[in-house]
């Protein structure tokens, strides 16, 4: 079965993890995975694609240098994994900058309702959800690959505090999980074992670059590729 993974910069560790598994001969023989970047997450809130018959044409000139269409020309993938829909950083950062919070978190911050927060998330993911809807309309099977959770040295942690950061991330993902469930799009989650007791990602999966506080490393990528392979085999994608 052929799986195409496209996404934001969190696709980077997936690609690097996949390369490492391939070099070590650790890939599942029955699953063929290809990882392509779309573009950096902060630019995914702007229009970056348009319908083009049997595919989505990438319109952002910079994105097009890496990937001009989804799916790429050639054999159709059996499933497309999106690594974009769960990254909460843009909204979480805005919440921190404006000192906003949600009911139930406690501590400082002006409260916004769950409904307002949901609208912020949907606005943040508008282009990505529209892309998902379009790909589904082409009878392409989709799933979502979760990015890493937050690491303890995430740059906005001091501003938000640990509880607010983790709760906002959980709330963001809950909104998106509900949206994806409505579309029957499954999610390949980060295993529980990757998190500490409070809910932060273990530093073992932190990016190799000391200055990078939000991407995973190739260990994380390899682990998630394994999760995707297991999910793909379990779902018996090739049968549907």
């Amino acid at each position: 079965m052929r799986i195409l993974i496209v996404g934001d910069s969190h696709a980077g560790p997936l690609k690097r993890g996949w390369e490492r598994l391939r070099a070590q001969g650790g890939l599942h023989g029955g699953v063929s995975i290809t990882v392509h970047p779309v573009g950096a997450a902060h630019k995914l809130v702007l229009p970056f694609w348009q319908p083009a018959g049997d595919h989505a044409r990438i319109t952002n000139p910079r994105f097009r240098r890496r990937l001009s269409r989804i799916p790429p020309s050639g054999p159709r993938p059996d499933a497309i994994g999106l690594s974009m829909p769960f990254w909460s950083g843009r909204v979480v950062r805005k919440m921190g900058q404006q000192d906003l919070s949600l009911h139930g978190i406690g501590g400082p911050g002006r409260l916004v309702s769950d409904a307002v927060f949901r609208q912020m998330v949907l606005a943040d993911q508008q282009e990505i959800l529209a892309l998902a809807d379009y790909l589904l309309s082409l009878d392409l099977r989709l799933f979502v690959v979760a990015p890493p959770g937050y690491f303890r040295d995430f740059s906005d942690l001091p501003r938000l505090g640990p509880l607010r950061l983790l709760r906002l991330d959980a709330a963001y993902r809950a909104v998106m999980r509900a949206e994806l469930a409505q579309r029957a799009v499954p999610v390949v989650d980060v295993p529980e074992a990757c998190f500490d007791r409070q809910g932060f990602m273990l530093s073992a999966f932190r990016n190799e670059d000391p200055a990078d506080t939000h991407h995973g490393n190739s260990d994380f990528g390899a682990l998630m590729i394994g999760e995707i392979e297991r999910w793909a085999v379990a779902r018996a994608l090739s049968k549907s």
Partner: protein
Amino acid sequence: MTHPYRAQPPRAFWKSTIAGKHPLDVADWYVKRFPIDGARIATAGSCFAQHIGRNLRGRGFRYMDVEPAPEGLPQSLRQDYGYGLYSARYGNIYTARQLLQLLQRALRRFTPVQSHWEKDGGVVDPFRPTLEPEPFGSVAEMEALREDHLERVLRLFRNAEVFVFTLGLTEQWLSRADGAAYPLCPGTAGGVFDPAEHAFHNLTTAEVRADMEAFLALARQINPDIKLILTVSPVPLMATATAQQVAVATAQSKAVLRAAAGELVQAHEGVDYFPSYEIITAPFMKGYFFEADQRAVSPHGVKHVMSVFFDQHPPAKGAGGWVPPDPAPDAAEPDAEPPLRPRMAPGVAETAEQVQCDEELLKAFGPDADPE
């Protein structure tokens, strides 16, 4: 022979001011009682008050908004979720009793018995039931948001230098248990109407005056220098709960509000009255500014009203623009709290994160992904 009328300006005389004039040429509607430029200004009231707030903000006055819309909430949804309508998310405050109780609730001097109304499987705040399009998911969420709102309302009243209030209605629905004044009749936007729990009351002039006096006294306990600009909404009642025909009920309601406003101006130097009601509804205006339904005020009408207001209150050159949610504390404002951080352009951390995203893409996918 001399008498007081000889000293009156031309605007005091019908013949020179109104007679024979085209409605749009009628001038001298309003002479300000005190300046507002440079002052922190807050607004509240019935729906017509939204126009005043929007224009104050748009013309560079120091308009207060203690609950600004979150950046990230689409502009097209902000008003639907109660943002940007007034200086706080209190929704429409139609009556003097509502205004008084809002401040009492913010000061924790009044806690209504009825805390929530059920609606469509969720709950709404009885004191701002149409704040958001959907009901809240739980009582706890609704109450937490209300507490947060009331804290900010208190800051608003502590820090506003001028409060513009548009009196809208005299008819209202009260809780029989504690007199809590609801903006809407229970059952119309949540809750269940129960004649054993809810009572209709049409405020009298004396009651409106007393409620506004009580409000002013309370506001000046926490903010001694606050000034008040009153207006009366020209928008007729949508419906009356009295036995009167709706236009007759409207006439009574507006007359009561106008009379009370006049009494308040006479009684207090720090209270002004701006005649938006007269500009729209005066007989010689011939209903010119009403839409076809004879109720909604046309954009032309709003523009005309605002031009009269700003003729007297021209924005000062270099006047402050957007007022941050909380004014900066100074020695004269011991209760003022630290301002929120101003809205940020991408900060150092954000920019660094964007660079890291580019670097991660470069690292994984090679030089084709080099940054622009």
